[in-house]
């Protein structure tokens, strides 16, 4: 029982300016976040009735192909010009504003849905995308991915990340137009069609 035998010491106080410290480890979000993390307006990053709103939606499924009913999805994206928003107010949305951040719990069929802006590309030579973070019971450390857009074929073909991913898995990073101003982005945690998940140097 190494954890119990180790002497416990209060950590050094106010270690500002001292040596770098170790990463605090992740733990699963568990099944009981329902009163804590989802919030009214969380999925409506851009008010759905505004002409420039797009929908990003999809199903989260497991290695058996079954939808996961207890995942929670976050998106974070730039504005139409490719710039990150610095607006506050993600918890109390200004119906005409845009903070870029959204959160949606999946429903019992594993489905999530956001309305947001289609971002512009952040850099010359990069394709536009939304950052997606996924949390669930059974997922001990959240998973990052990106949702690119299938109506940007030229930009996608030149994008440095998409170019590096195996061709047969690349489509898992691309949201598919399924209706006017609507894109489908399914997330498969394991198995056939497993989504490409990303390491930003954060897998420590």
């Amino acid at each position, binding site marked *: *029982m190494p*954890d*119990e035998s180790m002497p*416990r010491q*209060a*950590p050094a106080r106010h*270690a*500002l300016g001292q040596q*770098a*410290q*170790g*990463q*605090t*480890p*992740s*733990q*699963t979000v568990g*099944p*009981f*976040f*329902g*009163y*804590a*993390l989802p919030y009214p307006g969380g999925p409506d990053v851009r008010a759905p009735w505004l002409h420039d709103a797009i929908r990003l939606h999809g199903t989260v499924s*497991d*290695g058996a192909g079954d939808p996961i009913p*207890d995942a929670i999805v976050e998106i974070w994206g*730039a504005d139409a010009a490719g*710039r990150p*928003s610095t607006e*506050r*107010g993600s*918890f*109390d949305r200004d119906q005409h504003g845009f*903070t*870029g951040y959204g959160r949606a719990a999946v429903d019992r069929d594993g489905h999530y849905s956001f309305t947001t802006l289609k*971002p512009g590309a*952040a*850099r010359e030579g990069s394709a536009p995308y939304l*950052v997606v*973070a996924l*949390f669930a019971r*059974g*997922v*001990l*450390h959240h998973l990052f991915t*990106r949702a690119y857009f299938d109506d940007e074929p030229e930009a996608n073909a030149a994008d*440095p*990340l998409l170019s590096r991913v195996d061709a047969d*898995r690349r489509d898992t990073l691309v949201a598919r137009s399924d209706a006017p101003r609507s894109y489908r982005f399914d997330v498969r*945690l*394991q198995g056939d069609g497993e989504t490409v*998940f*990303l*390491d*930003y*140097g*954060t*897998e*420590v």
Partner: protein
Amino acid sequence: MQRPASQPELTQATISGEIADRHGRERDAAASAGAPLAAHPRRDFAPYRSTLLRHPTHELVRADPEEIELVSPAFGHTDVSPEEADLTIQHVGEPLGERIVITGRVLDGESRPVRNQLVEIWQANASGRYVHKRDQHPAPLDPNFTGVGRLITGDDGSYRLTTIKPGAYPWKNHRNAWRPAHIHFSFFGSAFTQRLVTQMYFPGDPLFALDPIYQSIVDPAARERLVASYDHDVSEPEWSLGYRWDVVLTGPKSTWMEPEDADHA
């Protein structure tokens, strides 16, 4: 309260054996690679059975963070009111349980404060029961405790919250499985790559060695970083016990660049 039927015959001994085997394999692999043990849990940590169909089997693909990933959503006092940091004042009456204060700082890997960022928490009540329709544990709900709070860190990265100590609770990973008492925390860093959801534990819990979620962190030193310290200076006479827990969010973030014309300013 009716006692539920007993669980499947997957014993703690089997789970504990699997934990020990995996820890041994991870230590050997780290030693032969000359690499440190990982700080984060292994996503394919089989003793925690819910991981089996929920971990990716492909290696994660290394991505260069772009600007959007190197900054974080902005939260502020328009989003969160100061009362939300006190979980004991959300109802007409006071919740049952041991009143506690938890305080600490959120820092980056260079010990710089993560200032003015969002912290969210949720937890079971003193009996080990969550306000959640899927929590079937036959322990009493507390009408004066929802178990949800949030706050914005100060300029020095500090946070402080008041709550009650949560109870341990049973779960169905294996027969006689109990989660050590814990509080769920969600953090945003100064970059979205630093996003972290985790659980804070209390010192000396006898369930640590038995819990496959806690033990999914294979590095003992990293596990210790999830355990708060009792701090008598945080305890308040005739009022509450105090715990201190600092959090470190490493990972890439934007570096402040000196303007090109700085020499001419």
